[in-house]
């Protein structure tokens, strides 16, 4: 279906071809060690659970 006329001929807002990002779902989809991996990530972003100091 065609785009609405208001979208045609205007300057866009994205500005450049978008590259595909890594597929996040695959990192957290059940696999060999999904529970462990999910738990590790959750722990890393839990408040007060500093992993290391810079």
């Amino acid at each position, binding site marked *: *279906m*065609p*785009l*609405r006329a*208001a*979208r*045609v*001929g*205007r*300057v*866009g*807002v*994205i*500005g*450049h*071809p*978008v*590259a*595909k*990002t*890594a597929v*996040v779902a695959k*990192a*957290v989809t059940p696999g060999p060690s999904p529970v462990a*991996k999910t738990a*590790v*990530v959750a722990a*890393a*972003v839990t408040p007060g659970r500093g*992993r*290391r100091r810079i």
Partner: protein
Amino acid sequence: MTDTPLDHLGPVDYVVVEFPADASNFTGEMADELVRLVNSGTIRLIDVLILTKNEDGTVDAMELSDIEELGELQALEAQLAELLAEEDVEHLANAMEPGSTAGVLIWENLWAAPFASAARRSGGQLIANGRIPIQAIIASIEADEAAATEGV
């Protein structure tokens, strides 16, 4: 689009969510969650397009209003602005695989607007922002673990 003063506008983000031809499973759950985010005042939905990339690389675009049964999305559709231009469709579809369909969402982060506005009034300037992929966090943790193991 509402007449939001520029100084009160929250950060605007976009996502392109691809559904491979053999992996789509539309249950209405996504629409429900989107409506919940809007109704709670967390985001303001600015624009939505549904893109289909054909095997020959050509792209078809559908407006949200082109969908026959919108359900709860009907109310959101009426509030959309047509921010994306035709050239944006080409740029966004660049990330898609042939044979896939993708939803493009543009939204304003209403939750961040008051803080962003306060930062601007305080003289702050946004000089960087971004998103940290889950994979990067996993890789960092695994690198730490590997280093610790080698150190033992």
